[in-house]
C-alpha cells in the first residue's frame, strides 16, 4: 500500500511536469487551431520554416549563442587560472564580483546593462546582445573550471617546466588536458543559457534583431498560436537529444575508467 502511494506520488509530479510539454508537442501536429484534435498535419512546421521572422530569429539565436559561449569560455577559463593563483583578500574580492551576476535578479542585470549601453551610446543590436550574454555566462564557466584546477596536481606543471617545456607548451600538454572536462561543461552551460535567455535579451535587443525566445514572447502575448507549438517541439527535442547524448557519453566514459 505504502509502496503504491510512493509510486503514485512520483507519477503525479511527473505527470504535472510533462503533460503540458507532451500536449504542446501533440498539438503542433494538429490540423485545428483550437486544442481539439482534428487530424494530423505538418502545416505549422511549414509555416514556421517559411516565416522569415522566425528564421532570422533562429539564426540570431544560434549566432549569439556560439559567439558568446566561445568568448565566455576563453575569458572564463583564463580568469579561473588567474584566480586560482590568487590568495587572500585579492581572491575573495574577485570571487565576490564573480558571484554578482549569479545572485542578482536577471531583470537587474538586464536593465543595468541597458543603461550602460545607452549611456555610452552603443546602438542596441547584435553587439549589445552578445556582450550581455558573455557577461552573464562567464561566472558559470569560471565556476565549472575552478574545481578542476583545484583537483589538479600543480607539481606536474612544474615537472614539465623542469624537463624543459616552455610555459606555453606545458600549459598545452599538462594543464589543458586536466581542466578540459570543466571547460567543455562551462561552454555547454554558457551555450544553453544563451539560447534560453529571455529577460536579459529583452532589455538589450535592438530593432529588427530578435532572438527566438523574444520572438516567441511577442507571439505568445497575442494568444495561442500553433506555430509556437512547432518551435517549442523543435527546441525541446533538441535539448533532450543533446542532454541524453552527453549523459550517455559521460556514463560510458565512467564505465571505461572503472574497468
Amino acid at each position: 500500500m505504502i509502496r503504491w502511494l510512493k509510486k503514485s506520488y512520483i507519477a503525479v509530479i511527473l505527470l504535472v511536469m510533462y503533460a503540458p510539454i507532451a500536449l504542446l508537442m501533440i498539438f503542433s501536429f494538429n490540423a485545428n487551431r483550437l486544442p481539439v484534435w482534428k487530424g494530423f498535419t505538418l502545416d505549422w512546421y511549414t509555416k514556421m520554416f517559411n516565416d522569415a521572422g522566425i528564421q532570422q530569429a533562429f539564426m540570431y539565436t544560434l549566432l549569439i549563442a556560439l559567439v558568446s559561449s566561445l568568448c565566455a569560455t576563453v575569458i572564463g577559463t583564463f580568469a579561473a587560472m588567474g584566480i586560482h593563483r590568487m590568495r587572500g583578500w585579492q581572491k575573495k574580492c574577485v570571487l565576490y564580483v564573480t558571484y554578482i551576476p549569479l545572485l542578482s535578479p536577471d531583470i537587474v542585470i538586464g536593465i543595468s546593462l541597458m543603461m550602460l549601453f545607452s549611456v555610452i551610446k552603443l546602438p542596441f543590436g547584435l553587439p549589445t546582445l552578445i556582450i550581455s550574454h558573455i557577461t552573464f555566462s562567464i561566472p558559470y564557466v569560471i565556476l565549472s573550471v575552478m574545481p578542476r584546477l583545484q583537483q589538479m596536481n600543480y607539481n606536474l606543471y612544474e615537472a614539465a617546466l623542469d624537463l624543459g617545456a616552455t610555459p606555453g607548451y606545458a600549459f598545452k600538454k599538462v594543464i589543458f588536458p586536466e581542466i578540459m572536462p570543466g571547460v567543455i561543461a562551462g561552454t555547454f552551460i554558457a551555450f544553453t543559457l544563451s539560447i534560453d535567455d529571455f529577460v536579459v535579451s529583452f532589455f538589450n535587443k535592438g530593432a529588427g534583431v530578435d532572438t527566438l525566445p523574444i520572438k516567441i514572447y511577442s507571439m505568445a502575448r497575442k494568444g495561442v498560436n500553433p506555430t509556437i507549438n512547432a518551435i517549442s517541439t523543435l527546441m525541446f527535442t533538441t535539448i533532450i537529444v543533446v542532454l541524453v547524448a552527453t549523459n550517455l557519453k559521460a556514463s560510458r566514459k565512467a564505465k571505461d575508467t572503472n574497468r
Partner: protein
Amino acid sequence: MNKKSLAIPYLIWSALFIIVPLLLIVYFSFFQEGQFSFQSYQKFLEPYYIKALWRSVQLAFFSTVICLIVAYPLAMLLSGKEMSNKQVVLLLVILPMWMNSLLRTYAWASLLENTGVINSLLQGIGLPTIKFLYGDKAVIFGMVYNFFPFMVLPIYNALCKIDPHLVEASYDLGANKVTTFRKVILPLSMPGVVTGIVMVFMPALTTFLITRLLGGGKVMLIGNIIEEQFTRTRDLSFGSAISMILMVLVLLALTFLGKKDSLDGKGGGLF
C-alpha cells in the same frame, strides 16, 4: 603561463559590464537630470507600489512553501534505497531546468486557457468550464511549476550526503521513525532546504514573464513595474530606484540565510 595576470581580461570585463552598470543604477536612482534627490525613492512609498512589492513577496513566499512541501517528500523518495529506477526519475525531474521557461509557461497557459485543453475536456463531459487564467492562483502555479526542480535538487543532494550510520545509530538508540526524521534527517538536510528556498524565492520574487503570461496584466508584481519603467514610461530614475530596493532585499535575504556559496550549482547539477 599560470599566473594571476591571466585574469586581467576578465577583471576588465567585469569592471566594465558588471560594476559600472550597477553603479549606474545607483547613480540614476539618486540623480534626476543631474540633480540629486530622493524623489524616486519617495515615489516608491506610494501605496500602489508598496502594495505591489508586498504582493510579490506574498506570491513568491506561497510558491516557495508549496515547492518545499511537494519537493521534500520527493527528494526523500529519490534518495531512499528501495526505488529501482530513481536515476531515471531524477533525470526527469531535473530535465525541465534545461528547457526554456518561457516555453514551459506558455505550455501551461495554452492548457489553462478558456478554450484550452482542460476546459475543452470539461465541456466534452458536460461540465461547466473553469476560468483558470489571469489571477494570483495561476501565477503561483506557474512559479511552482517553473522553479520546482531548483527545490528538489539541493534537498536531494543534502539528503544523499547524510551518513546512513547516523540514521541507524538513531534507530539503535531507540528513536522511532518520526523522531529520527525530526532529530537527525531534517537538521542534516537543512543546508539543502535553505539553498532550495533561495533558488525558488529569488526568481519568483523578480519574475515578470510568468506574471505576464499567466496573470495577463491583471497581476502587477515588482518585476512588471520595473519592466514598465524601462519599456513604456521610460522613467529610468524610478526604475533604478526600484531595482536598488530589489537588490537590497535580495542581499538582505541572502545574508539572513547566510548562504553565499550555496548557488554554485544554479542551473547545473546534471553534469
